[in-house]
């Protein structure tokens, strides 16, 4: 309860900061929309040459593109600003002030900041998903909707855990900013069905860098095409990565000896 109230305060502070720079806000929204257009054009041009990619039709693939856009928005809005801040705080030693506050340090460090204009991506992503489903003439039943919600929450957990783990690495390494670049590069594969990729790469994207769990599987869930075994696998994956990243954070904080001291 206390944590929810804190979260509300963090969000309000974030929005107030954004609203101070309105021109910036408008430009950022436009920028979000132009990137969404890039994603849409990328999928569409493929389908001007073929009827399906990796067994997915145009509107099915657009569901994935929509989820890619929405999840990208969540990353930009919540994860990226905080991870950047954590890296900076570790480098400057100002993390000390955060650690001495009477709240869970991971909660505080990972949710304190936000970039509210990236919500544009979440909204346009959702719009793309709804539009594609309606063009398919398909309304998900309660079962697939429930499966989708579970899969999406697990996708959030996985993405959150990866970002926290990357931020935690900054306790030992200076150039972690590069690592987030690498994540963004690999995340680009999430705009297409994982079945597009062949052989080892597909295995890699499913199990090592769990990109398939972020867009492909949730899309399958909402389309009612999810394999029975995937759901428990996703739950196991989400919970494991979350617990592991939380443990990693605690371990790092325990060994942390502050900068310039």
């Amino acid at each position, binding site marked *: 309860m206390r944590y929810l109230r804190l979260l509300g305060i963090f969000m309000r502070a974030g929005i107030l900061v954004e609203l101070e720079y309105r021109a910036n806000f408008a430009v950022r929204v436009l920028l979000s929309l132009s990137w969404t257009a*890039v994603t849409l054009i990328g999928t569409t041009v493929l389908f001007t040459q073929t009827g399906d990619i990796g067994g997915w039709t145009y509107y099915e693939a657009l569901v994935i593109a929509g989820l890619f856009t929405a999840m990208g928005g969540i990353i930009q809005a919540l994860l990226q600003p905080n991870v950047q801040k954590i890296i900076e705080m570790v480098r400057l030693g100002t993390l000390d002030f955060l650690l001495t506050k009477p709240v869970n340090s991971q909660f505080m460090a990972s949710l304190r900041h936000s970039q509210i204009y990236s919500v544009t991506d979440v909204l346009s992503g959702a719009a793309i998903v709804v539009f594609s489903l309606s063009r398919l003439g398909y309304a998900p039943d309660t079962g697939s909707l429930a499966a989708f919600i579970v899969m999406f929450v697990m996708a959030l957990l996985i993405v959150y855990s990866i970002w926290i783990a990357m931020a935690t690495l900054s306790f030992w390494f200076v150039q972690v900013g590069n690592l987030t670049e690498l994540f963004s590069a690999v995340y680009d594969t999430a705009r297409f069905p994982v079945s597009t990729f062949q052989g080892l790469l597909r295995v890699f994207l499913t199990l090592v860098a769990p990109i398939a769990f972020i867009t492909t599987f949730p899309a399958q869930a909402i389309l009612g095409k999810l394999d029975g075994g995937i759901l428990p696998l996703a739950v196991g994956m989400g919970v494991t990565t979350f617990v592991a990243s939380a443990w990693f954070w605690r371990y790092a904080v325990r060994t942390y000896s502050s900068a310039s001291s």
Partner: protein
Amino acid sequence: MIRKYAALIRMSWSISMAYRAEQVVWVLTSLLSVIMMLVWLSISRGGPVNGFTSGDFVAYYMVGLVVRQLTGVWTSYEMGNEIREGTLSPQLLRPIHPVHRHVAANLAEKAMRMTLLVPLVSLVFILTPDARLVLTPWSIGAFALSVAGAWAISFLADYAIAILAFWTTQAAALAQVLYSLRIVFTGIIAPLQMFPAAMQAALNWLPFRYMLAFSSEILLGQTGGDRLWFGLLVQWAWVAFFFVAVRILWRLGARSYSAVGA
């Protein structure tokens, strides 16, 4: 002038040598091209797509990778900071225009990236015998000319945006818009031949094609004769246009520069 450039490039080279890990990441950001190549390969498994065989897609994207790294620019990002923080001021007092320092930094980085990329791309060509290029003295010469033009357009367009930082704090956002346009219209997401005919006709006159796809097309033997000459002509016309635009913008911008924070 040449001696000055040699010194500037040596300086920039040493700076990039010091941050070598950073270079690897820059190569990694080309991953979108590789991803798009794999997606097109999965489609072309059933047969050629619009005249492109699997080998053509590999050749197209591998050449594209090299061209993209050769023409990459980030000056607007750096200069935006320099203008905002006022560190541009001492540069303006030196007897050499700041643009030369930016050009030198850019060229030194290029050399650095090629030492990584060229062996990698060569390996892909060796492993993919289907990926064929048309390598004649003629095509190589035209390719080199087109890459120089592609770099000039990219650099000058980016520099024009960089100069806008004299007036607006949103120059970085503008650079990003340009970047998103480049991903679609320079031929990263798809070879331009995959776009509808009307769009291709328009792209023949716009600068985007000449920032990347045009060079790849030359080495793949997809553009020759009159179409090659036409392309080079339009490309260098754009170079001239951006050159004049940058000169005018710089003159106006330097006048209104008030050295924030200095």
